[in-house]
């Protein structure tokens, strides 16, 4: 079970808690985790990744195990603590600045 932490607006949209759990069959990567998340909550399609290209929306960041994973290859296996559910995979809205 993978733990995913969502920003406030996506919790409201998906009508879910801050942390949700998803199941991934096969290799646990950012792509497979986000695919599973969107399958569980279809309303999130297009809110995290571009619908057509699958690329991260530019004002979102992906963190895990104290690392910024935002620009990593989405098909790279995630760190083992995330894959084993000991650490969450964090979806963060970038700071607006100002």
């Amino acid at each position, binding site marked *: 079970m993978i733990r995913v932490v969502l920003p406030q607006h996506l919790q409201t949209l998906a009508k879910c808690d801050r942390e949700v759990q998803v199941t991934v069959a096969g290799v646990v990567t950012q792509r497979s985790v986000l695919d599973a998340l969107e399958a569980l909550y279809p309303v999130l399609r297009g809110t*995290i990744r571009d619908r057509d290209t699958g690329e991260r929306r530019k004002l979102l960041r992906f963190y895990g195990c104290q690392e910024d994973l935002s620009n990593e290859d989405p098909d790279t296996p995630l760190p083992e603590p995330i894959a084993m559910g000991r650490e969450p995979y964090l979806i963060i809205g970038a700071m607006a600045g100002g």
Partner: protein
Amino acid sequence: MSGVRVLVGTRKGGFILTSDQKRQKWEVSEPQFAGWEVWHMKASPLNPDRLFAAPSTGWFGQQVHRSDDGGKTWEPIGNEFKYASETGTHLWYDGTPHPWEFARVWHLEPSLTEPDTVYAGIEDAAIYKSTDAGQSWAEMAALRTHPTSTKWMPGAGGMGVHTIVQHPEDPKRIFVAISSAGVFKTEDGGESWQPMNKGLKSPQLPEPEAEVGHCVHRIAMHPSRPDTLFMQKHWDVMRSDDAGATWTEVSGNLPSDFGFPIDVHAHEPETIYVVPILSDSYHYPPDGKLRVYRSRTGGNDWEPLTKGLPQKDCYVNILRDAMAVDRLDSCGIYFGTTGGQVYASADSGDSWSPIVHDLPAVLSVEVQTLA
């Protein structure tokens, strides 16, 4: 309940303001879609409980939501706006070709005749139609692929379809206005579109009377006179009496003919309203005085309406979608400001009072008259 329901889109959510027919005491809802930019909310004229809303953020993109209980609850509906064909290019600010890209929904226009049909105007400029109450959207692509569209160029605020005006009896006849391409009309339900900009003069353009490229801010129609249209252009207030074929200026004695919204009295088709703004460099009212101007002659002869509106130190703007009228016997006029005030008049504009002072910047105002 009989009375009115005012739907207000703001930079940080939507608000629903309700009152009885007297329009003196108001209830203000909690924020809907709190924290999201709500560019537009609008109700079906055929089903008063059915509302549509278009919240978006730079972080999470575009949402479209529908309520079937008058705004008590909302459900997300289709938010996929795919261009129907090869996107091609329009002009970018530097004059180079730029591919069409979806940015946001600017305007939602429920059908006058079919309760499950709704139109959406988007940036980059295109119009979409849904026939399943917003679950899915199909582009009416002939507008975006009009032969002139390679020459369309965004204004400072982007290039979007911001106005969709339906003929009251012929659902195949629709006018749209695009910033900054101008007015287009279809008479065949969107299969083909014609530019309707003859008579517009825009000195900002290399060819001031060009077929397209005019920064039309808003058009309005009274349902009893579907061949008469009123327009607030970037500069100039205009009217057409031949269904958009030609336009004549009716700015008359306005203190400034720059502005954004324009609307028509519910029961007097020659009574129209604008809010003059000092200029495109300032985007606030002349002399720090917030004045709605009313013409009872369809333009040219205008009177300032000031009772209840701030007449000093007022430097707000009123955006193009932020004025609406109700259909009660004594017509109500409403508008919202970038300062977060929503003003209402229950007497055709003779006097005004704020419904609410301190909302986020108001992007849009629509009104439902409830039986």
